[in-house]
C-alpha cells in the first residue's frame, strides 16, 4: 500500500509554489537587465563619494 498519497490539494500547492518561484526568478532577471541598461546608458552618472569630493 502506498502511504504517500498525493492529494489534489498538494498538487495545486506545488503548482502555486512553482509558479511563484518562476515569477520571482523572472523578476530577478528583469531587474538585472534593467540595472544593466540604466548603468550603461550615456547619461548615467554616479554620485561622487565624500572621499572623492575631498
Amino acid at each position, binding site marked *: 500500500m502506498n502511504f504517500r*498519497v498525493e492529494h489534489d490539494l*498538494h498538487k495545486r500547492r506545488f503548482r*502555486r509554489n512553482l*509558479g511563484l518561484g518562476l515569477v520571482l526568478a523572472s523578476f530577478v532577471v*528583469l531587474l538585472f*537587465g*534593467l540595472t*544593466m*541598461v540604466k548603468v550603461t*546608458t550615456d547619461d548615467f552618472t554616479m554620485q561622487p563619494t565624500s572621499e572623492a569630493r575631498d
Partner: protein
Amino acid sequence: MSDASLNTVTSQTGEADFGDYFALLKPRVMTLVVFTALVGLLAAPVGVHPVVGFAAILFIAVGGGASGALNMWWDADIDRVMKRTRSRPIPAGRISADEAFAFGIALAGFAVVMLALATNLVAAALLAFTIFFYVVIYSMWLKRWTPQNIVIGGAAGAFPPMIGWAAATGSVSVESVLMFALIFMWTPPHFWALALFMRSDYENAGVPMLTVTHGRRVTRVHILVYTILLAALAVGTGFTAVGGPLYLAVALVLNALFLIGALRIWRRDEDAAEADGYAVEKRFFRLSLYYLFLHFGAIALEAALVPYGLGGW
C-alpha cells in the same frame, strides 16, 4: 501520510492554484491593456531601450491586472449572480475576497513603484490614477449607480496607450489623448452591444446597464450616436502625427462597416432581434473587437514604417 492527516488536509477548502491568481488579473482584459500600451509606446516619437520598453509594458499590465483583482474583490457579490462571472476564483470559493484584496493592493503598489523606477514619474502617476479610476470611480461608485457607468468608466480602459506614450516621452500630448479618446468612444457601443444580448445577466445582478434602466430601444439609439462620434474621431486621427495613409485607409473601411452595423442595430426591433438570436448585435460586438485591434495595429505599423520613410504623413 496517515489517513488522519489526509482527512485534516481534505477538510480545508479554497486552496488556490497558480492559475486562479492569474485569473484574478483578468488576462483577457490584460491583453487589450498590453496591446494598446505597446502601441502607445511604439508610436511615441522618442525611442526607448527594448528592456525598458518590455519592463514598462509588463508593469502597466501588472497594474491593469491589479485593478482587475480589486474589481473582482469589490464585485464578488454580483459575480456570484451573473452566469458569465460565476466561475471566477472568488465566487467559486477558490480564493477568499480578503486574499484578493491584499493581492490586488500589493500588486498595484508594486506596479506603480516599478514603473516609476523603470521609466518616469508621469507614467507611474498615470498608472496609479488608472487603477484608482477603475477601482474607486468605476467599480465602487459608477457601476451600480448610473446607466452611464460604461461611458465614464470606459476611461479606465482607455489610459494604457497614454501610459505607454508617457513611459517613452515622459509627457502627455495631443496624440496620446487621441489614442485615449479612440478607446473611450469605442467602449460604449462595444459594451452596449454585449448588454443587448446579455441583458438578463445584468438585470439579475441589479447593475443599471442602459438596457435595464432605459430599455433596448434607447440603447440602440445610443449605440448609433456613439458610433457616429467614434467614426468622426477615428477618421480624424488619421490626419494627425500618429496617423498616415495606411491608418486612414484602415479607418475608412472599418468605420464604414461599424456605421453600417450600428445602423442595422438601430433599425431593428426586439422581435426581429429575438427571432435570429441577436445575430446582428453579436456580429457588431465581434466587429468591435477587430475594430480596435486593427486601428491600433495600423497606428503601430505607421510608426514602424517611419524609419523607412514610409509611415506617417
